[in-house]
């Protein structure tokens, strides 16, 4: 059983000019779905790139153009923020790898078009973490959760990042990672290999982004091992963009990707990533890659269950894209992700503690 009709948004992302045949009522729905999914500016970019934006009716055009104005300003702000981070860390000689949204922007990847995100994510070697934190403090980034011993322990002992840092003047958030999965997770990718393969960006010679295969692996791991599906479709669209882009530039991309996935202990996340980009967005993933990854995925019995869960969780967070099982599916995947990221002996006390704090009304805003 899958959630009934294919959302207009998914159709529109696959065939932007097809939107020109929509009725006003359909446009109303499409704009709402795209906004809820965090994909409004992506849709606007696609229509703009196809030269179809001027043919969109005035009503929806207002929202598409507004989202483009916002996206362009966001792009500029991200470049400025990255330059500031780069300035701060360069003097300390710490190798820095940009992750996720900021990496897509600085590497000029198609996944950056209209991609909105609230934090900049960077990765530094674990041995340089203390140096990086101290250097960033001198440049105005202050640590959050400072007065909470439990949160400090949660991040520093178990997670793959330190507590988010907030710039005191710009109020921007910086996540400093040292790996791409929590230390407590069952899968153990070797962060040193990520650094070794990282590639410089054009604008700043000593600033790096993950190598193409690693970037895809991180994107898939983030989506399928993190448990947050509020912007699940948007993250799936990122993955689709990355795959299409790298595949078009390197005929051996998919075989390399699959080999790297096994090498990095990330074949599981990649299997899910390729399965659902192909299933939902029609990404041209070769059968050979799917077959090679089969042993990393769920067995024949569990596969229909996982499909039923992900088919729901990866849809836009909008009432017209949900059925009565959608909230349960999202909750089950949230629990699954925690289980994948922490052993039960840590997870049960952690979730109990979080629930208790919520009942007491304390601010329990951390990512655990």
């Amino acid at each position, binding site marked *: 059983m899958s959630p009934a009709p294919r959302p207009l948004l998914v159709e529109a992302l696959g065939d932007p000019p097809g939107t020109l045949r929509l*009725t*006003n*009522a359909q*446009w*109303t729905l499409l704009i*709402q779905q795209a*906004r*809820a999914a965090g994909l409004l500016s992506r849709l606007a970019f696609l229509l703009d790139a196809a030269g179809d934006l001027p043919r969109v*009716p005035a*009503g*929806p055009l*207002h*929202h598409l*153009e*507004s*989202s*483009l*104005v*916002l996206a362009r*300003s966001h792009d*500029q702000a991200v470049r400025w923020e990255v330059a500031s981070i780069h300035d701060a860390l360069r003097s300390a000689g710490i190798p820095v790898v940009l992750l996720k949204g900021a990496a897509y922007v600085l590497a000029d990847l198609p996944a950056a078009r209209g991609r909105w995100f609230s934090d900049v994510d960077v990765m530094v070697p674990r041995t340089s973490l203390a140096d990086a934190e101290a250097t960033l403090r001198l440049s105005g980034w202050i640590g959050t959760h400072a007065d909470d011993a439990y949160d400090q322990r949660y991040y520093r002992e178990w997670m793959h990042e330190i507590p988010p840092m907030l710039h005191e003047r710009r109020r921007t958030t910086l996540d400093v990672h040292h790996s791409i999965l929590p230390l407590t997770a069952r899968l153990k990718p070797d962060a040193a290999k990520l650094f070794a393969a990282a590639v410089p960006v054009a604008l700043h010679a000593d600033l790096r982004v993950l190598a193409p295969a690693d970037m895809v692996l991180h994107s898939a791991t983030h989506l399928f091992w993190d448990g947050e599906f509020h912007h699940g479709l948007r993250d799936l669209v990122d993955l689709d963009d990355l795959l299409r882009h790298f595949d078009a530039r390197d005929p051996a991309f998919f075989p390399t990707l699959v080999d790297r996935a096994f090498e990095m202990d990330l074949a599981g996340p990649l299997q899910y990533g390729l399965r659902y980009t192909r299933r939902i967005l029609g990404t041209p993933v070769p059968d050979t890659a799917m077959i090679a990854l089969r042993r990393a995925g769920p067995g024949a019995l569990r596969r229909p269950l996982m499909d039923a869960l992900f088919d729901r969780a990866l849809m836009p*967070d*909008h*009432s*017209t894209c949900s059925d009565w099982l959608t909230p349960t599916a999202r909750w089950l995947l949230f629990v699954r992700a925690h289980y994948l990221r922490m052993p039960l002996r840590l997870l049960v006390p952690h979730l109990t503690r979080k629930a208790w704090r919520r009942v007491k009304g304390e601010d329990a805003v951390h990512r655990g």
Partner: protein
Amino acid sequence: MKIGDLPAPQLRERLAVDGVAFRVGPYVTRLRSPIARVAEGLHLVGAHHPLAAPADFVDFDLEIRPRLGLWPPLHRLARLFVDGAAPFNAFPVAQSYAMFEWGLNWCVATRSDRYLLVHSAVVEKGGRALLLPAPPGSGKSTLCAALVCRGWRLLSDELAILRSDGLLAPIPRPVSLKNASIDVIRRFEPGAVIGGTAHETIKGTVAYLRPPADSVDRQAEPARPAWVVFPKYEAGAVLRFAPHSRARTLVFLAHNSFNYHVHGARGFTLLADVLEHCACHDLGYGSLEDALRCVESLASNDGAARPATA
């Protein structure tokens, strides 16, 4: 057909079942709610707004649903849904109409980044627009309401929508009046239609003045900014009407813009070009009649053509 043309029971029925879509400035808003106060408020202060056609695109989809609160047991709350999601806390059901107006403002302010949005009242006379930007409590809404009662066209009591061509787009909603200013306007204009009252909100008592039919009928007609006046009401104050530097005005408008940072250099140039042709004044007053006389003198003696001090 206008909202006020529907008989009240029919409006209430339509609001409860399919929702009612109507035009507000450049936008179509659809409102759905089974709550009687929402229907009453809309019927009274929203009467002049034209209904949209069923096939029209809907910009803002709002719904206000009642629900029961847990403590004290079974007290009546309501929640505002935007596009089917509820991003805000529940509120007392008696404040539902005010929450609709607030929610609509929120939609316009957060979803119109192709315009430069400034927190300001805007009225127009003789084709020239007057901006009244000021912090809350300065008497901006009261002065705006009084001007509208004296025949100025209402563009907005909250939001100046500046297009890239330098013209202001109207978004005529009912003027929100707070606390003492509700009675001030009732006394000032006994014929004024005021409704949608909500007590004990964060801002105290709030009520809404229905915009004149002419302002709503002309809601597609933009206006060119000609004056910026910073009102400052103080009980017992003597009248003070003095030029305000245009450079400072620009800085103030930028600070009181919802999305100046989004527009960057283009936003600066746009504001500078607009203010080049505006006369800017401070207006301190203790008497509404004095303030009105000053503003009327601007409109009658062609104040805009005079270069202001920089």
